């Protein structure tokens, strides 16, 4: 009886360990889990297009008239 209980406990512990480790999967967590010192690892931002930049430059220049 004790042997069966022990086997059951070992099996349970192994299952718990496997489940715990699988929960560390980055894609399942939906957040950054790794870390590299000095490196931004978050989502990448979209770049502004040439048209958008040209508009911004014109708008910057328009501040001169006041």
């Amino acid at each position: 009886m004790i042997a069966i209980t022990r086997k059951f406990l070992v099996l349970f512990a192994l299952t718990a360990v496997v489940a715990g480790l699988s929960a560390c999967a980055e894609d399942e967590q939906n957040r950054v889990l790794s870390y590299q010192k000095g490196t931004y690892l978050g989502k990448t931002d979209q770049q502004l297009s040439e048209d958008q930049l040209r508009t911004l430059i014109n708008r910057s220049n328009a501040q001169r008239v006041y």
Partner: protein
Amino acid sequence: MARMKFLCDAERCIECNACVTACKNEHEVPWGVNRRRVVTIQDGKPGERSISVACMHCSDAPCTAVCPVDCFYQTEQGVVLHSKDLCIGCGYCFYACPFGAPQYPQAGNYGSRGKMDKCTFCAGGPEEDMSSLEFQKYGRNRLAEGKLPICAEMCATKALLAGDGDQVANIFRERIVARGFGSGAWGWGTAYSIKS
């Protein structure tokens, strides 16, 4: 294109706080968080000057250097942004920033302040441009709309300038030449000078 920069002309600022109000309204910033504020020195005395202060998007940003989770990044236009997904609310950036720009939604100790919030130069954050998620986390992305930051665009006296650094510097230079005195743009040296 040069880097995006702010410049506050202390000779023109009349402490109307319209930039503060516009910023809060545009980005629906919560109570207790001020991305921009107006500071007055020598209040009520001769030599009184007001300046509008927010994140200056430093070239070599100290907040980026001290962040323990590296949640800061710079866009190609030099705008310093951060990811609220990575931020742990430690408050180190607040202590490092010479302008007191980082703000927190709650008062508390390490890690209990909530995600840091600061001026984004109206450039949103690392979410899809002009998406509802970006607006919810970081506020409106006016740069993607081809507009400059709301604080500068609506400044009645054009004390607060924003945009392409070369052009902003040229506008200020023309004003200084016209005035014939002074040349110090508040915060410019701290934020944009090359540090040895």
